[in-house]
């Protein structure tokens, strides 16, 4: 975990400047500006309804599936504007993977779940697919548990395993960024701990942004923490600093549970 003493060496992977987000007439995100560093874990915390998940989903433009959205301001990956820089959203979603709150494996076999992504992008050769599937399952600490039952249906797994399968599925297309929307909220403590361990391992090669309503989880796994409230960014800093000496009163009140 980063500490205030060591300076940040990693470049900025995702950056946001003055971003507004509207559902119809309602402004859900207001004037957001922040930087997310590569190969770090950035946690987004805040009370329910403050726009954290909405914000997360802006990075892979998945809102656009259900309804047209209005995004103003800049949102950039590696310096290229996500919305206006001519990026193809299908390619964006390969680069920016997502893990959802409730595990949502396809009702197919474990193998087919992980191979789904690569197949979308034209990988057909069985040997290659086998390799990709094994690699992804190893990276998400599932391989040893499922290597003998890859053909079994994914829906027969426990919640924690299913979520790790969803992570493997996302990893199979070799993303640069992994967005995690409260990935542990439906899981028991042991499964949660396994996934938190996984997050710390994965960040070696991946930029991770995790939305969580569990402050302690944010404290445990993240390098940076951003506190959102009612669609605005109140404070963002090194996790260590936010949890010991937050600058804003609101952050302090939220962390000490004295909100409202």
């Amino acid at each position, binding site marked *: 975990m980063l500490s205030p003493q060591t300076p940040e060496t990693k470049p900025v992977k995702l950056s946001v400047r003055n971003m507004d987000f509207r559902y119809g007439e309602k402004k859900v995100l207001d004037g957001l500006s922040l930087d997310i560093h590569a190969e770090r874990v950035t946690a987004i915390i805040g009370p329910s309804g403050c726009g954290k998940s909405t914000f997360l989903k802006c990075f892979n433009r998945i809102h656009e599936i259900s309804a047209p959205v209005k995004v103003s301001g800049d949102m950039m990956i590696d310096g290229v504007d996500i919305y206006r820089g001519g990026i193809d959203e299908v390619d964006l979603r390969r680069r920016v993977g997502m893990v959802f709150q409730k595990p949502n494996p396809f009702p197919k076999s474990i193998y087919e779940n992980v191979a789904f992504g690569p197949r979308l992008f034209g990988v057909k050769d069985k040997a290659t697919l086998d390799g990709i599937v094994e690699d992804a399952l190893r990276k998400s600490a599932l391989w040893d548990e499922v290597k003998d039952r890859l053909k079994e249906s994914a829906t027969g797994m426990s919640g924690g395993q299913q979520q790790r399968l969803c992570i493997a599925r996302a990893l199979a297309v070799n993303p640069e960024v992994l967005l995690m929307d409260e990935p542990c909220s439906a899981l028991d403590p042991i499964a949660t701990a396994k996934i938190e361990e996984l997050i710390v391992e994965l960040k070696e090669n991946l930029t991770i942004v995790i939305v969580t309503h569990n*402050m*302690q989880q944010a*404290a445990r796994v993240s390098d940076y923490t951003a506190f959102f409230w009612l669609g605005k960014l109140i404070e963002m800093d090194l996790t260590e600093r936010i*949890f*010991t*000496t*937050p600058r804003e009163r609101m*952050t*302090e009140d939220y*962390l*000490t*549970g004295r909100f409202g």
Partner: protein
Amino acid sequence: MRLFDTELKNLRDGIMAMAGIAEEMIELTIQALAERSSAKADRVNELDRQMDEWELKLDQLCVDLLALHSPAATDLRLIASSLKIIPEVERIGDHCCNIARRASFVHPPILSEGSLERLGQETRGMVRRAVDAFVGHDAALARAVIKNDDTVDDLYAQIYRELLRIMLADPLCIERASHLILVIKNWERIADQATNIAEEVLYILEGRSAKHPYLRGNAVE
């Protein structure tokens, strides 16, 4: 109020109670020295026992709060600092006992009029102000206490030199003088404890350590 807030209040109140006992012990010690009263010295020892009981109780309270409530930000700093303030207060009590024990051995007085009393009162003042800073969330007061430590150190050095002179001049005073050296050493230590408490208060209030200013950014200035 939530359970956690109640417990935090208990912690603060407990520290205040402990500090109150410390101040009473200091007062009695000053008097015991002046009046050569063994009754008052005994009372100091009784109070020390109460102090020790408080220490155990409050230490446990701090650990419980950490275990059960995962405190963050100011609450966290308060509890972490309390774990350091509590033993400081307890040691103030121990030093008072050390001083009070020697009350009968420093008579008839050999020092210049009032210098010993002044040291005691300066020290008492520092302790009181450090506790006030804790209770009143007063960073300025805490800084004043830290600065005051120099005054007490100077006073200690001054009395020490005087005692050396007295011992060289009149060998009959050596026994009383050596007791007095230990007495003033203990006062000086109590002042250090008050300073440490003030430093912790600054950490609670501002989030940066006020210790060892020679090492880096100075929280005191």
